[in-house]
């Protein structure tokens, strides 16, 4: 067995911390995967039942035809906002504290976008009905836009994650710690001959620079289109022009929450305390509090105007939500899903504890899940005919598939963090290194692609190096 060398400098320490989860599988990790697989197995059994019996085994009927499945779809689309968008915004803003967290944010996006459409398939009953979307799809339908938007966002996020991963894959390929790693071939293949030359750095920086600008409107449009599936339907509670903004705000809120939770879990599991400091949690906590205030503002703005006019069936809807059967859900969401997380971050005593910030993130996500449920089920429960409001009770099939979806999401992230480093090692090293000597301009010009000469600032902020002579010259 190879003797463990003492880790002395930052680079070695970082590589050791980032690569060690890749080199071995602990008993706890195996147990976690097993538990997740049990939940997924339960989901497979539930789906088998639904496939055999039809959607009648769910609590959905003709009046409430969207239940937990669509709630979960909207919820996962929401948390997918975390990654790419937050990562891209922080990169553009040159927020240096983002360096250790961007990779995880991108993981969250890709994993959530893989799981979200599964719930649409579940909601369809027979999966063959998916073809109807393409056979009978119309350009005018927000559902068609959503299919295009989701596909584009998923592919774009995967490319974005991969681009930022290339130098780390090269590090994995060349690392002595991972010399006998079974996935060495994978690192080699996907590192695309990365040697860290200046022209490669320049090219990657430019590609990431353009990509991060493109991915922001793609992410926003994805959430906008998802909200339009509701807002463009002739139903009183969804008849709102601010739904798109409401969805984007809510997505950012829940996305930041998931990122905080994931950061805390990986910090503990992979001993990344040196890189995920209290300050990172605080900064993300501030973002969480800010988004919670935005969501609160949207709530007040929406319900005060609707409640003042009481157009159509809004009286019944608001009555049901504020004092009726939906009131326990709404007030749980409002108080513990919006107000409490903001307070936990705002109060200095709780803000100083990572545990409280994680609690705020957890509450925010529970609250946002309830909010999605209220939008979907609460909106559909309002009758279009002169009947009583409809009732919906999810069955064990739906609960099982929901649990399986969450387990699938966690499993995807659990697997990704075992294949590639959970922190952007090369970006953190890049940040600490002195600025490299500029290559001659002629060489740069040769490496540049003709026809596309977009000059963007480097997405990798470089720390000014102190002068060697102490600044006397």
């Amino acid at each position, binding site marked *: 067995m190879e003797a463990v060398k003492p880790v002395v400098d930052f680079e070695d320490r970082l590589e050791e911390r980032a690569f060690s989860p890749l080199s071995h599988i602990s008993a706890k990790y195996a147990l976690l995967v097993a538990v997740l697989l049990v939940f997924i197995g339960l989901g497979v059994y539930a789906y088998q039942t639904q496939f055999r019996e039809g959607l009648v085994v769910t609590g959905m009927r003709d009046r409430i035809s969207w239940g937990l499945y669509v709630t979960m779809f909207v919820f996962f689309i929401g948390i997918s906002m975390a990654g790419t968008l937050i990562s891209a915004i922080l990169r553009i803003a040159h927020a240096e504290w983002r360096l250790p967290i961007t990779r995880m944010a991108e993981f969250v996006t890709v994993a959530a976008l893989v799981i979200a459409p599964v719930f649409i398939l579940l909601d369809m009953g027979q999966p063959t009905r998916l073809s109807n979307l393409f056979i009978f799809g119309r350009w005018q339908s927000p559902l068609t836009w959503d299919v295009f938007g989701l596909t584009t966002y998923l592919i774009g996020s995967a490319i974005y994650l991969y681009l930022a991963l290339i130098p780390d894959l090269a590090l994995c390929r060349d690392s002595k710690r991972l010399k006998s790693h079974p996935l060495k071939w994978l690192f080699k293949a996907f590192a695309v001959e990365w040697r860290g*030359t200046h022209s490669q750095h320049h090219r990657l920086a430019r590609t990431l620079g353009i990509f991060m600008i493109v991915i922001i409107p793609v992410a926003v449009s994805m959430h906008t289109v998802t909200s339009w599936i509701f807002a463009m339907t002739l139903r009183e509670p969804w008849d709102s022009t601010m739904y798109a903004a409401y969805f984007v705000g809510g997505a950012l809120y829940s996305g930041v929450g998931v990122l905080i939770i994931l950061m805390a879990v990986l910090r503990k599991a992979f001993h990344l305390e040196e890189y995920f400091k209290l300050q990172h949690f605080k900064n993300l906590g501030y973002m969480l509090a800010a988004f919670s205030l935005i969501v609160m503002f949207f709530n007040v703005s929406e319900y005060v105007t609707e409640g003042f006019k009481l157009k159509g069936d809004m009286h019944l809807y608001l009555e049901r939500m504020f004092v009726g059967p939906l009131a326990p859900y709404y007030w749980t969401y409002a108080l513990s899903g919006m107000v409490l997380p903001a307070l936990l971050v705002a109060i200095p005593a709780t803000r100083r504890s990572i545990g409280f910030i994680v609690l705020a993130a957890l509450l925010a996500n529970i609250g946002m899940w309830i909010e999605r449920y209220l939008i979907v089920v609460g909106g559909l429960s309002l009758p279009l005919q*002169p009947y009583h409001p409809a009732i919906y009770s999810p069955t064990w099939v739906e609960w099982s598939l929901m649990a399986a979806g969450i387990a699938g999401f966690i499993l995807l992230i659990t697997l990704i963090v075992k294949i590639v480093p959970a922190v952007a090692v090369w970006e953190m090293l890049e940040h600490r290194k002195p600025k490299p000597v500029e290559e001659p301009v002629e060489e740069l010009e040769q490496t540049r692609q003709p026809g596309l000469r977009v000059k963007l600032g480097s997405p990798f902020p470089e720390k000014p190096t102190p002068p060697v002579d102490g600044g006397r010259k």
Partner: protein
Amino acid sequence: MKGTIYRMLLLLCLALLAAWPVSAVFADSPAPAKLDLTAPSSGSVGDRLSLKALVSSATGEPMPGVVVVFKVSTSFMNTEDSVELGRATTDKQGVAAMTYVPHSSGDLSISASLSGDVKPAVKSASSVVKILEGPQQYDSEQIGVSVPGLGPWFLAVVMGGIWFVFLWAMAQLRQIFRDGQHSAAQKRTSRLENRHV
């Protein structure tokens, strides 16, 4: 005794005299007593059906200013009910009218009744209209705001632009790969040259 009877008769006469103007008012505005519904016997999906209700008094005089409620019978999963189609107020001829566009074929059972608590109660009137399949979809095919020059092509251009960036990124990856190969080859050459030296 006789005097008492005279006094009572006098009081009765006075009471009748006092009641005379009230009965005169009643005579001026008689209560609605009859309701007739006129509807076409048949139509097609998407047609505009003209529904008319005539409200008249017991003596057959038209009753203006009376609110009539038009309803259609519905049945869903063994539950029978009626859905209000609309309300209209009678004109000087005692006619309340509205139009209704049927959305589905079949026998449409339309009824008209007086709004509010009318006493004595007036029997509602009903009529069955046979609705046939229409020549085309009842919904208007031209809906929304037409913006000249804006169409699916706009969506295609936006999506195309985004996917172009994706493809461009892939091309950059290929170039990164080539740069790496070139750099590795250069290193190998310089290593060989160093050995020769």
